[in-house]
């Protein structure tokens, strides 16, 4: 349709983000399997431990160039705490009446709403962006499709 408007970099970013979502499915499978044998702490602790080692190995081999010589503010090093708290909150609500599907659905809603708000305000020192009508339509379709998969895609075979 409006193919000439598509920027090749944008398509690359687009596909990379889509593929990154596939990695998340693998993580859920691996970490979830671990949680069936060990405690929830263990199933979050192990990937953080092996991840730290793997990241060091990647850094040693790839030696990525630093984007800036200026150090990031101290708080920028604390993203892992936010991730750690997430594990606890979601494990608690997964074991409540919300179950896994409710937890995932509400989590997606929280994630999308806050991401939109953060883009509009340019929170945490990231570039500010104003979502367009097209973005809202795309978000709506993807969230609706996700909700259908979460609540009706499984179990009722």
């Amino acid at each position, binding site marked *: 349709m409006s193919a000439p408007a598509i*920027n090749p970099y*944008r398509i690359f*970013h687009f596909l*990379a*983000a*889509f593929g*990154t*979502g596939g*990695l998340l*499915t693998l993580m859920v499978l691996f970490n979830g399997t671990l949680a069936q*044998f*060990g*405690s929830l*702490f263990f199933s*979050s*602790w*192990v990937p*953080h431990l*092996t*991840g*730290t080692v793997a*990241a*060091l190995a990647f*850094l040693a081999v790839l030696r990525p160039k*630093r*984007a800036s010589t*200026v150090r*990031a503010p101290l708080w*920028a*090093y604390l*993203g892992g*705490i*936010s991730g*750690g708290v*997430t594990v606890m*909150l979601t494990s608690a*609500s997964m074991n*409540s*009446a919300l179950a896994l599907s409710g937890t995932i659905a*509400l*989590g*997606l809603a*929280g994630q*999308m709403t806050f*991401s939109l708000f953060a883009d509009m305000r340019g929170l*945490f020192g990231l570039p*500010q962006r104003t979502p*367009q009508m097209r*973005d809202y*339509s*795309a*978000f709506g379709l993807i969230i609706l*499709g996700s909700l*259908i*998969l979460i609540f*009706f895609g*499984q*179990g*009722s*075979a």
Partner: protein
Amino acid sequence: MIFVIFAVLGGVLVSVSRQINGRLALSSSAMEASFWNHLVGLIFITVIAVFAGGLFAGTPAAAPWWAYLGGPVGVVFIAAGSWLIVRIGAAQTAMLIIAGQMISGVLLDVAMGTGGNLLARVTGVGLIVAGMWVSASGKTQKANDKT
């Protein structure tokens, strides 16, 4: 009710984490941001687990070997998210990661023979693909960047 707040807050924190890591990647590199994310997370979980106990409860040695591969995959996942959020924004990054997770989840279920509702799967995947098409067919996102 408290669990509804927990679940929503969990999603918000996923987004917060990606933004903080993205900010760190702006000053260093995406892989370095991923390293700090994992190291700080490891220290944090270790401290909590020491207080709460039960880190090694259960029979973790009985888990299949591949269940231990979540860490390396997570490193690439966090690095990719930190790299992307600076370039396409928090909302687009979240949206496409969700789309990728949902569609690959269906593919995995089909591959592993997990039963499911075919109509719901086709409808859900169709809506997600339509959403991605709507997003991709637009002009470059009008933002305060010029790409």
